[in-house]
């Protein structure tokens, strides 16, 4: 084994020595800028416009609307959030969205699946009334299966009774 190691060391020394070059006598001329100057494009630091990450960022929480116990009506606060969502969807007309309906844990499983769909559907209908084309919107229910707030108290349940709009492209 030692012989091979020695041989390898010799080879690498040779390789390194072969890499050392002298700079050429004359440098090639600098490239000429013949094209018209293009406007500087905005730096690509954020998510792509029309993507779910972008949507969430722009909505800043208004991608979610909330409901009272057993209820599925769209109140004034929900309306404001849905207007923001509709504006976004109008701005990016190629984008489709799914509305996810949820319920809190304090109810039976199958009824909550139905209630989740009812809530998502209510949000969808309001978006349609604001001019979003119906075939861009689909609805999914998660019932009580996907809570975001983990407590068993009124505050947690209020956060879980929600419809979340998710953009798909």
């Amino acid at each position: 084994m030692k012989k091979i190691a020695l041989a390898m060391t010799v080879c690498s020394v040779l390789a390194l020595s072969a890499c050392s070059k002298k700079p050429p006598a004359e440098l090639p001329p600098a490239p000429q800028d013949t094209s018209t100057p293009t406007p500087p494009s905005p730096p690509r630091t954020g998510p792509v416009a029309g993507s779910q990450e972008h949507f969430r960022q722009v909505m800043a929480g208004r991608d979610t609307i909330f409901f009272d116990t057993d209820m599925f009506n769209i109140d004034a606060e929900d309306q404001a959030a849905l207007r923001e969502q509709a504006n976004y969807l109008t701005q990016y007309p190629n984008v489709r969205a799914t509305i996810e309906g949820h319920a809190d844990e304090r109810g039976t499983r199958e009824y909550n699946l139905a209630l989740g769909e009812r809530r998502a559907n209510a949000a969808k209908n309001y978006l349609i009334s604001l001019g979003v084309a119906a075939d861009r919107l689909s609805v999914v229910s998660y019932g009580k299966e996907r809570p975001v707030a983990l407590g068993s108290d009124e505050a947690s349940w209020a956060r879980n009774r929600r419809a979340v709009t998710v953009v798909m492209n």
Partner: protein
Amino acid sequence: MALRTILLAAGLGLAAIPASAQNAPSPPIEVPEVEEEGLSGSVTDDSAWQDLGIAIPAFATNAERSTAANSQGTGALGVELGRVVFNDLRNNGLFKPVGPDSLPRPDYAQITAPAWPTWQGRAAEMLVHGYVRAEDDGRLTVGCYLYDVQLQQQLVREGWVVNAAEWRRAAHKCADLVYSRLSGESPFFDSKIAYIAETGPKDHRVKRLAIMDSDGANHRFITNGQATALTPRYSPDYAKIAYVSYLNGYARIFVYDIGSGNQTLVTQSQNPTFAPRWSPDGRTILYSMAVAGNTDIYRVPATGGTPTRLTDTPGIDVGGSYSPDGSKIVFESDRSGSQQVYVMDAGGGNQRRISFFGGRAATPEWSPRGDQIAFTHIAGDLRVAVMTPSGGGLRHLTDSWQDEAPTWSPNGRIVQFFRTARGSGETSIWQVDLTGRNERRLNTPVGASDPAWGPVLP
């Protein structure tokens, strides 16, 4: 998978003791109910049974032989058989059994001719004896005898031939034999439970379809948890399980064929479809579908075909459980403004509300005996309750923070449900007797919800 029942002969070379059917202790006290729709419910007063001691020693074997059912041979298998019978009867709460680990072991000849003095000093009114024989083809013959110790008489006997892998079924059949003979109830130990196994944090639960024997043995996961599985139901012939899966990102109903492992999609819609239920003859599947904010109940042939819509109100109509004769369906609806229980004919006609007590009523399930409907009563907490098919006789069986989704044992005597712990959201499966007694938790490997009990295996 069939079990072969054999008539136990006096094959041990000893005179058979004739079964004496008139030997039962004092008859159970009937609690009369108001006559309703031709169905009358009765719940026996079991206080007479609570002190009934039953001795269940190890089963004997004619010859020590190796068997696939136990690495230590038929002798050790006999002890295990006795333990399964003992645990079935002990967990049931109806009797006071004593098991093989606390009792002397009878020999083969004593199985049909018990040594009465051994048992008479022991405060055991009843005695179970059994034997196991390994046959040349690898199968097992198991015999089960029930004796009245005081009268020194055999009450009932039966035997079965099983594949070695199914030795537990023979023990469950023996427990069923003893239980039925002494309580007058139909059997239920030889049955299986389908449920949802839960792991993971509360906001990201992994939910897998799983099955197990009624005593928790032979546990098996069916799905791998990548897609959430919910609310399974065994078909009446045990060949299939209908359940909800989010395989494509939204709720659809699948039927899993247990023998072949094949999955068949029952509902093709983009709308959420959930709450699958089998008809008693296994030919129809009920399901609920949510369309544009409105959920209704449909039925479809189990083999596939055109669905028929059964409810049509602007509200959430969901669930559905057939009466045992298949003529009616009990379901839940919020058409009155809150979740309540309704009954309709199997064709969808004659829909009428039956729950008129306070609070909300959900997840109704018709007892296999036809005399009761189990449901979730929501009034602050969620509690398991029963009522008659006309909505009377409300009784609560549990009193915890959140108990829901009751289903019935095959004999209509025990209600099974799942309990959610406040805060952690951890779930577990529990059973409670129809009288509200003997509430006990089932041992499952991880968290457990949505339990559904299959019928007694033939």
